[in-house]
């Protein structure tokens, strides 16, 4: 049994209570209320949750690595790691919305939905039962469908929401089908028991087991934006309010990876099949198609959406080589944490640009470095960290990912090609990030500086400190990643 003070339960209590109370407060006050009032409450709830996760970690109340248990959720470091990444993004979104939501109606519901979606994402990472995982998955998805379409009068927001909804609903349908097959084969919905059931499966039923795992990869892959399932992603990221895009790109995507690592990577090891090649091919396709499409974009949100697809490919390298190199999952987790901060900061910077200048076309961003110096600097640092330029934190995680691919080369003949593809893609991505930077700093007439939204500046300062700080001194983050990474071995079975 979980204790009542265990991290996931306390997070549900804090975020759930505040999330449900916010609309009730707004009804009780009989007025729309100011945006900043609700934003402050939501921000406080997120900070308290973050503080609680940190407190639990510092006091060693959390077991290392990823565990299986008979309960539906487990209080382990793997879940805590994702909880921290997602809470950072949720805080970014809330803080960024201080300014962005000022002109829009019913802020209480908006912040309430952000909090509820955050519970869902956190619980996906903590769950050890397929029923719990599915419920958490939907708790994450349904609020984000509404949030993407939050600008009711805006046709592109509505279209983005419809596309996102259709693909999201399809992905959850596929996940339920995968769960139904794995339940039929093993007679249990507990992830640990499912994995154990697969290891003792009758060989004639193996194709069905593979089918269920394939359905899990497809279902989670829709949210992660892996290549055959990525068509909705640029449209949705472009049409959604940019603050919500930050939440989608940086947090719900990571929930997909959390679920994939817990089920597929840990589970497929026992199936003992050559599945790594399939993931490797998807990884290479994902990063190549993402980066090539990103180069051709004229709209900064779409460019970053495609770069987000490419980054799903980099993270997948670590998953593909996971059984052959201990660095693989570490690199993936490291990149997940960095990507949450980098992508979150980049989209919040776009939210700031949209709030003040109302432009997203790249040609209109000329001279941004002089008009909005702090936002532009934060955006550029996030972009270079995404590309993996050395003194920034993104460099170390990419180094670890590509290093893991080389590390696995003794047992996998094709693993070095993953590293080569990754390096080439990083160079390619540097081209369009550099082009964007040139537009912002070296083109356009000298224009007057305009007032930048204060909340956006706060996010930029935080992300810059995070990316530069952990870039120069990566030791603490590395230790944390090592602590949280699941150990792949057959001794892991319950």
């Amino acid at each position: 049994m979980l204790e009542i003070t265990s991290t996931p339960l306390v997070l549900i209590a804090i975020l759930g209570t505040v999330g449900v109370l916010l609309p009730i407060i707004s009804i009780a006050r009989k007025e729309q209320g100011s945006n900043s009032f609700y934003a402050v409450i939501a921000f406080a709830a997120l900070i308290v949750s973050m503080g609680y996760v940190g407190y639990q970690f510092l006091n060693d109340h959390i077991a290392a690595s990823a565990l299986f248990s008979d309960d539906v959720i487990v209080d382990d470091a793997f879940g805590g790691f994702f909880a921290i990444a997602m809470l950072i993004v949720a805080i970014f979104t809330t803080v960024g919305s201080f300014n962005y939501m000022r002109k829009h109606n019913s802020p209480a519901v908006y912040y309430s939905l952000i909090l509820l979606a955050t519970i869902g994402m956190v619980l996906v990472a903590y769950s050890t039962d397929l029923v719990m995982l599915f419920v958490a998955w939907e708790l994450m998805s349904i609020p984000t469908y509404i949030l993407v379409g939050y600008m009711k009068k805006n046709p592109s927001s509505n279209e983005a929401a419809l596309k996102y909804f259709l693909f999201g609903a399809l992905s959850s349908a596929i996940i339920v089908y995968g769960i139904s097959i794995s339940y039929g084969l093993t007679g249990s919905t507990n992830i640990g028991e499912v994995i154990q059931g697969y290891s003792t499966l009758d060989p004639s039923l193996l194709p069905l087991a593979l089918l269920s795992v394939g359905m899990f990869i497809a279902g989670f892959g829709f949210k992660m934006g892996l290549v055959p399932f990525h068509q909705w992603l640029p449209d949705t990221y472009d049409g959604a309010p940019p603050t919500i895009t930050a939440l989608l790109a940086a947090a719900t995507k990571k929930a997909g990876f959390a679920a994939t690592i817990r089920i597929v990577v840990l589970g497929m090891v026992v199936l003992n099949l050559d599945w790594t090649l399939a993931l490797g091919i998807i990884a290479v396709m994902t990063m190549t198609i993402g980066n090539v499409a990103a180069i051709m974009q004229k709209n900064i949100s779409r460019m970053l959406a495609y770069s987000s697809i490419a980054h799903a490919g980099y993270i997948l390298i670590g998953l593909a080589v996971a059984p052959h190199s201990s660095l693989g999952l570490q690199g993936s987790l490291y990149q997940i944490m960095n990507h949450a901060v980098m992508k979150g900061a980049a989209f919040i910077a776009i939210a700031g640009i949209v709030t003040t200048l109302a432009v997203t076309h790249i040609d209109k961003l000329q001279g941004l470095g002089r008009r909005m110096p702090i936002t532009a600097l934060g955006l550029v640092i996030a972009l270079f960290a995404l590309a993996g330029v050395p003194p920034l934190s993104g460099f170390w995680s990419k180094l670890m990912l590509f290093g893991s691919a080389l590390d696995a080369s003794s047992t996998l003949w094709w693993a070095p090609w993953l590293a080569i593809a990754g390096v080439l893609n990083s160079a390619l991505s540097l081209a369009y990030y550099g082009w964007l930077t040139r537009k912002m700093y070296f083109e356009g007439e000298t224009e007057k500086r305009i007032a930048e939204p204060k909340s956006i500046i706060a996010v930029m300062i935080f992300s810059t400190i995070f990316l530069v700080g952990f870039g120069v001194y990566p030791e603490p983050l590395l230790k944390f990643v090592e602590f949280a990474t699941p150990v792949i071995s057959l001794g892991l079975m319950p």
Partner: protein
Amino acid sequence: MTSELIDFTLVSVAMLGIGIYGLAVKRNFIRMLFAVEIIINAANLNLVAFGRFLPHSGGQTMALFSIAIAAAEVAVGLSLIIVAYRMYQNVDIADFRSLKG
């Protein structure tokens, strides 16, 4: 007994096929929503059928959760469609093309 189980799974696979066909061919948003619902119900049928042949009720529990969640999902989807209908007077996804590139 097992021949009964295979009947249920066959129906379920057929429903999965119908759902995927509907998603691939239809361009009316509500029809596509139905197609997704058919896939979810195929999975529910599977869960209940497997649960019937197992000594515990985990499958039925999962099916109940999934039915409730699917209802919530449809509520959100239909509300999005209503907003879109007010804007375009149409629910054909071929008309929604303000985003591309």
